[in-house]
């Protein structure tokens, strides 16, 4: 089945399913081997069952797991790209609870074990576009955030959703420096948060998230720049007012609340017209809403996206 809103992708770019799983199997073997060597480090390797969501299954060539897990922006560990993978062993992802609170009728603390069982786990292949003008294609595992939000019954005052990441400098040594305001905070408008593309994510490449990719639970909002997708979430608050995010505080002129991928609106210091897909030589043009315009552009009808960047 192919949903009408999913853009057609040239067949040459699609990795055949068998080959994809072969590669995946190879990488699992490789991972298993290195996990034995690096016992105690961040390499998870724990399988996570899911069904491939066909509607979201057809997309560009996948970025290899090695790149996905070794090239990370996760300032709570380190501001370099390679740093997070090296430091991630310090993060303890069990026990873990996520508190969902604010403008809801049934606030609740969810243990990670319960979150993992809350809805059927789907595999979805999404493009990830970083505000730094590089991109990846990642097979994530998760389910729509809407499934979780329905459980707590948002009130009619719930117009925004704020995500709060873990704060603990012992586990997250990057937090000893005030590079950003800790804890990391991100946010969405309620209709964005309820959109079926907004994925509450627990794994990638068939396994639980590596710590450096935001374990044990993170958001993936594929039509927005990567920083909008909060990692290692401990709290989800439903709010009446638009929250101020860590990046908005860090640079109000450079990072807005919406941060939709938009080739027409440049970052004040660099162009957003093109991106380097990791593994490719020539830059490719960046697509409006990262290629998800048909599904999400309607959310912003009538809004000036130059002002609401």
């Amino acid at each position, binding site marked *: 089945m192919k949903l009408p809103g999913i853009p057609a992708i040239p067949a040459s770019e699609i990795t055949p399913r068998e080959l994809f799983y072969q590669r995946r199997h190879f990488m699992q073997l490789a991972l298993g081997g290195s996990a034995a060597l690096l016992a105690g480090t961040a390499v998870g390797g724990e399988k996570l069952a899911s069904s491939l969501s066909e509607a979201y299954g057809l997309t560009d060539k996948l970025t290899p797991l*090695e790149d996905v897990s070794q*090239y990370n922006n996760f300032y709570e560990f380190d501001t370099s790209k390679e740093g997070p993978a090296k430091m991630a062993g310090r993060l303890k992802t069990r026990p873990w609870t996520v508190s969902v609170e604010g403008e809801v009728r049934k606030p609740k603390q969810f243990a990670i074990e319960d979150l993992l069982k809350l809805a059927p786990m789907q595999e979805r292949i999404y493009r990830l576009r970083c505000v730094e003008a590089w991109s990846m294609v990642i097979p994530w595992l998760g389910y729509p955030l809407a499934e979780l939000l329905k459980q707590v019954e948002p009130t009619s005052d719930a117009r925004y959703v704020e995500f709060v990441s873990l704060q603990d400098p012992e586990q997250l040594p990057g937090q000893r420096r005030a590079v950003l305001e800790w804890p990391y905070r991100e946010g969405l408008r309620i209709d964005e948060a309820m959109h079926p593309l907004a994925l509450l994510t627990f794994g990638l490449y068939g396994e639980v998230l590596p710590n450096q990719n935001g374990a044990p639970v993170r958001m993936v909002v594929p039509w927005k720049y990567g920083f909008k997708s909060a990692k290692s979430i401990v709290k989800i608050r439903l709010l009446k007012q638009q929250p101020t995010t860590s990046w908005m505080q860090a640079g109000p002129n450079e990072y807005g609340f919406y941060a939709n991928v938009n080739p027409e609106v440049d970052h004040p*210091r*660099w162009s957003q017209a093109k991106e380097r897909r*990791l593994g490719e030589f020539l830059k490719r043009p960046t697509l409006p809403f990262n290629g998800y315009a048909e599904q999400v552009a309607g959310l912003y009808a009538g809004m000036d996206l130059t002002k609401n960047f």
Partner: protein
Amino acid sequence: MNWKTLDDTQLRRLKALVFLTALLPLALLMAAAWQDNLGANPIEKITHNTGYWTLTLLLISLGVTPLRQLSGANWLFRLRRMLGLFAFFYACLHFLTYLVLDQFFDWSAIAKDILKRPYITVGFAAFVLLIPLAVTSTNAMQRRLGGKNWKRLHSLVYLIASAGVVHFAWLVKKDLSRPLLFGGILALLLALRWFYKLKSARLRRSYSSV
């Protein structure tokens, strides 16, 4: 043996050693490329690496004069040109990486970058300003220009290094620690330069008043 003076053989050997050491970052980069060890974004890695060594070698070449004044080892002076030319060499690699690997001769994108992106404008200006310094680095050119003019021209290197630091500071997304470190070292070198200038001016005055 007095370490403050070197004979010709010793100086030749030292120069060879410095030459090879200055090539080491390039050799390591090429080895990493050969082994496919440049990470997920090799072009970014090469760009950052060559930029880092341009700035580092610029600062090292600027450190020669204060170090000579502090230590009294005059032979340091004989290494300055080579270090400056290596800074230019890495600047060329940095620029070529941008031109070929990053933009792949996309002239309109490059022109837009230079005009619209302040960090590129500053970095490009610094690179262009380095060219006359490299061209006039030979003994013959020094003689042709005359010592005073040559010195004036080459004092541009402080402006160039400052532009390099600004270029770095403007491109990082948030963490300014590294650009600030480079900026701090540059400020220290400038301060030392002024300090010695004032000191020698005062000395000259006291001689003339005798």
